[in-house]
């Protein structure tokens, strides 16, 4: 009964923490809510008319939604990047930001599920894909696998975060025998969600652009650049706006790891380009469409090269210690990496996979206004989830807000998370 009472008080206090905030916080939340409303209206329109409100068609049957989904799976997987050094090597400065990484994973997964939901033609039949209730075509379908691992990963991260915060709130030390195996489990889980998502495309012999063994390793390499890029910027914002102490050292260490993963990602891109263009089989058309355009269709070309250029520039910025430890160039590098991977893992992966189509037709896909608004709504939802989680988590994590004491006056740090 104690546990139930504590949980109820934990929940109530979390809600209380979320509901109050300064002006900047309220403006930010209002802004996200407006974006969500706009997305909701656009989605209502899509529900009424069908997916014809998008610019997807039989030729390019997946587009902006699935591109964003793929990118965000990578962001979710990247939480592992911070978990490995923190728990395996017991590296102290990174430990406190691990919980933030896991919350980022939760927010990213919420967006992933949102993008899948808006992409399906019959959301009313969603229960068909639920294990036990529906009829999951497992283990044949890679999509069935993806449903399982994404939800398992979401549950795992949600549980670890909630449990750690609950312990901090009640002032008890968490049970290491419970948390450590779960955190260790989240490492292969993070690898698996991105691998399975890569296999989703990889397993389709019909689409030579995806049917390449390099796809899964490349997914992981790029995810381990883009996820931390988002996190590094978030950490700096948090340092400024909350009493959370994050050491420079931790940030620079993550940046160094990103230099290696970006270098590897660029190497894999080059390896793939070499294979396609040197052997020059009929399957080269997809890479041609992406990098040079095909029969006068060049929509993707500027994006493809922008992605390569941003990746290269960011790699150099993060490789050189001087630019890595300079805040201006560090943040520039983060933005460059984010842009590079967003293009590469989003539209740069999905669209050339389907263009030209299975019968050689070129349909030039560009997202419709509906798609852009719906996507903005989902991103806003993810940001809101993340903001609210942070709002409640930071004071609890810092020991500023506990069950016995309530809230300390702001600015005064209590005992940090044990």
């Amino acid at each position, binding site marked *: 009964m104690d546990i139930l009472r504590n949980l109820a008080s934990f929940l109530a206090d979390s809600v209380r923490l979320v509901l109050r905030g300064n002006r900047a916080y309220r403006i930010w939340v209002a802004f996200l809510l407006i974006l969500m409303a706009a997305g909701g209206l656009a989605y209502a329109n899509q529900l009424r008319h069908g997916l014809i409100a998008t610019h997807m068609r039989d030729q390019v049957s*997946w587009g902006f939604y699935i591109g964003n989904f793929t990118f965000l799976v990578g962001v979710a997987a990247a939480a592992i990047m911070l978990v490995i050094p923190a728990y395996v090597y017991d590296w102290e400065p990174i430990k406190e930001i691990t919980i933030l990484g896991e919350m980022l994973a939760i927010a990213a997964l919420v967006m992933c599920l949102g993008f899948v939901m808006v992409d399906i033609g*019959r959301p009313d039949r969603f229960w068909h894909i639920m294990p036990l209730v529906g009829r999951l075509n497992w283990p044949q379908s890679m999509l069935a696998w993806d449903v399982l691992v994404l939800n398992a990963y979401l549950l795992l991260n949600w549980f670890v975060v909630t449990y750690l915060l609950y312990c901090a709130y009640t002032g008890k030390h968490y049970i290491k025998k419970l948390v450590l195996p779960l955190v260790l489990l989240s490492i292969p889980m993070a690898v698996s969600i991105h691998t399975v998502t890569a296999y989703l495309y990889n397993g389709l012999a019909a689409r030579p652009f995806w049917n390449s063994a390099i796809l899964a390793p490349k997914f992981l390499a790029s995810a381990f650049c883009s996820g931390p890029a988002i996190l590094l910027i978030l950490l700096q914002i948090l340092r400024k706006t909350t009493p959370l102490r994050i050491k420079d050292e931790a940030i620079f260490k993550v940046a160094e790891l990103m230099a290696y993963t970006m270098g590897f990602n660029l190497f894999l891109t080059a390896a793939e380009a070499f294979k396609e263009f040197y052997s020059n089989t009929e399957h080269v058309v997809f890479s041609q469409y992406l990098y040079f355009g095909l029969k006068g269709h060049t929509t993707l070309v500027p994006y493809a090269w922008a992605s390569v250029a941003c990746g290269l520039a960011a790699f150099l910025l993060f490789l050189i210690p001087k630019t890595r430890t300079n805040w201006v160039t560090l943040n520039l590098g983060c933005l460059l990496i984010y842009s590079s991977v967003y293009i590469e893992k989003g539209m740069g992966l999905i669209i050339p996979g389907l263009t030209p189509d299975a019968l050689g037709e070129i349909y030039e896909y560009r997202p419709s206004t509906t798609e852009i608004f719906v996507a903005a709504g989902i991103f806003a939802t993810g940001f809101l989830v993340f903001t609210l989680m942070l709002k409640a988590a930071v004071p609890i994590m810092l020991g500023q807000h506990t069950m016995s004491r309530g809230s300390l006056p702001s600015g005064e740090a209590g005992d940090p998370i044990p």
Partner: protein
Amino acid sequence: MTETRDPRSTGSTAGCEGCGADGSGTSRRAFLGTAVAAVAGALVGCGNDHVEDFLQHNFRELSKAEVEEMIARLEREYKAQFGREVHVGHEPPLPGVIFGYALDLSRCIGCRRCVHACVQENNQSRDPQIQWIRVLQLDKEEGVDLRHADQYYDPPEVPEEGHFYMPVQCQQCKKPPCVKACPVGATWREKDGIVVVDYNWCIGCRYCMAACPYGARHFNWGEPHLPVEDLNPDTHLLGNRPRPKGVVEKCTFCIQRTRKGRYPACVEICPTGSRKFGNLLDPKSEIRYVLENKRVFKFKEDLNTQPNFFYFYGV
């Protein structure tokens, strides 16, 4: 809901479908599904048929009685929609039959009569337009090279100088990548080799479309519009019955005709006799004659989809 499964639907694919082969799993799912659906149905407060639609289980899990109920409901819904009687059949695969198709590339003139006969027979949406057969115009000098394919040729007269024509539709693969891809088992290969879709179970994720190497699967991007005067009222549950918005559809070798011993509409209409159809298990069939005496090829055979649809050069 009951545990009894339709005996004729258990055979061809149940073994390779992973889940749902055992009766207890079926009843548990049925129970949970019913519970979930009942709550949802009550919440949205929709009519009886709509609740039933929502509750509908995968075709392969339905008992005979449930199939009958489903058909009666569909016929009611079509009557309300079109103001006309629509017959929805569910003829099972004929014993000892696997359908095969062969297309003579040297005879096809690219007139697209097959395309339109197919649309008429199979109740495809007229707006937005859906066509199950795509005719490729190819260069004689290049052979079957998709980089030189054009689906939108529109000369005053066909065939055009220097070109030949290759109609492509569902190849009814023995190893269909679409069936493997579907996350909910809404599409499967029947005993007679026809790959069908359960339009009431498909969630519209379009993974099968990404998986199909032949562009044979088509999606109802918008509400399908079928003028009542164009409606073909003689339909099959897994074939040409009018489809709802947001689901995938494809060629079924005119399942509503061929399971009653008739030819597919495209075979019947072809003015050059390029299209051959028959029972692969019958040594005296025309399709077997073609396989025996002509040299056939399978489209994209390197993908090992093993189509029951063959192309050949007859002359």
